[in-house]
């Protein structure tokens, strides 16, 4: 995995795992690999991986049961909230990009429709 060196790496891992949760690649209730296995897979320092997992837990995306392991939340609300957060971010950045280029609303709509038809 390639990381952007100017942003905290644990945040980039969080984004990656959230994406997996939202797309269902990591299903609700699925068990996560151990922190050590994950840090090996992501090729990061154990501390970085621990921080990413702790943060995901704080946000409710994963749940850790002591001595058993970590699991993806089964709470549909949280997963939907993650979905909204991720799609919201994409839409916002797209719209502000288009507005910066000076496109009015109706043309943005047209462009999206055209692009979707392709």
């Amino acid at each position, binding site marked *: 995995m390639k*990381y952007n*060196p*100017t*942003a*905290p*790496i*644990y945040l980039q891992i969080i984004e990656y795992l959230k994406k997996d949760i939202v797309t269902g690649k990591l299903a609700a209730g699925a068990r996560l690999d151990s922190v050590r296995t994950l*840090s*090996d897979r992501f*090729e*990061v*320092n*154990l*501390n*970085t991986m621990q*921080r990413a997992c702790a943060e995901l837990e704080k946000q409710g995306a994963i749940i850790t049961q002591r001595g058993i392991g970590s699991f993806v939340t089964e709470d549909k609300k949280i997963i939907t909230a993650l979905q909204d957060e991720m799609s919201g971010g994409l839409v916002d950045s797209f719209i502000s990009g288009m507005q910066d280029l000076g496109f009015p609303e109706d043309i943005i709509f047209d462009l999206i429709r055209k692009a979707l038809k392709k």
Partner: protein
Amino acid sequence: MSVILSVKSGTKKFGRKLVLDSVDIELPTGRITGLLGPNGAGKTTILNTVMGLYRLDSGEIHICGEAIGYKSKRLISYLPDTNHLFSWMRVSDAIHYYSDMFPDFDAVRAKELCTLLEIDERSRTQSLSKGELERVLIMLAFSRKVRLYLLDEPLGGIDPLSRKKIIKTIFAQLDSESTILISTHLVKDVETLLDDVLFLNKGKVIFADSADHIREDRGQSIEDCYMEVFENV
């Protein structure tokens, strides 16, 4: 968090030249710290004094509370930046030599690391390429179970594939009991590896921070931050 290595106002002169100028370092357990700086900044000198190869002119060093001495040496595994193995040795001889020297040497771990790092135990240490030698040295250093690992330029002149393997091995080595100090000037290569950084210039620690803090608060990569700090010295 307990402190593994503490250096307090460490000062060292070679003749008239001041090589370490009142250096303060404190390394907690369970972290990977990068000692970064240009050539001649004093990185190797710091490692050598911690190893007890040089004596400080003034200041103190403690390793897990022990002053430098034969006891402290048992707590440290050191990877020098030169080939310190006897020229007649094969890799397997070096492994035997290490296991005779160090009671904490784990022969099983050495075998594992040889497989992982693709080391041929029959090769002669004199005929190894730079990358192979560095992998052998990493294998030897990490087959010991100690509190403090000192790695002097483990990535210098290493091809990307070997580098990746070495970095993976370094990650796997870290646990909550030990601490790793890596000296290097290849800032870019250790970007994702480090928890903390220490910038050393002309024998002085001029900057110390955690890697995440640099990225989060300054929005910079370690390399950008390094450039900025060193350009404004």
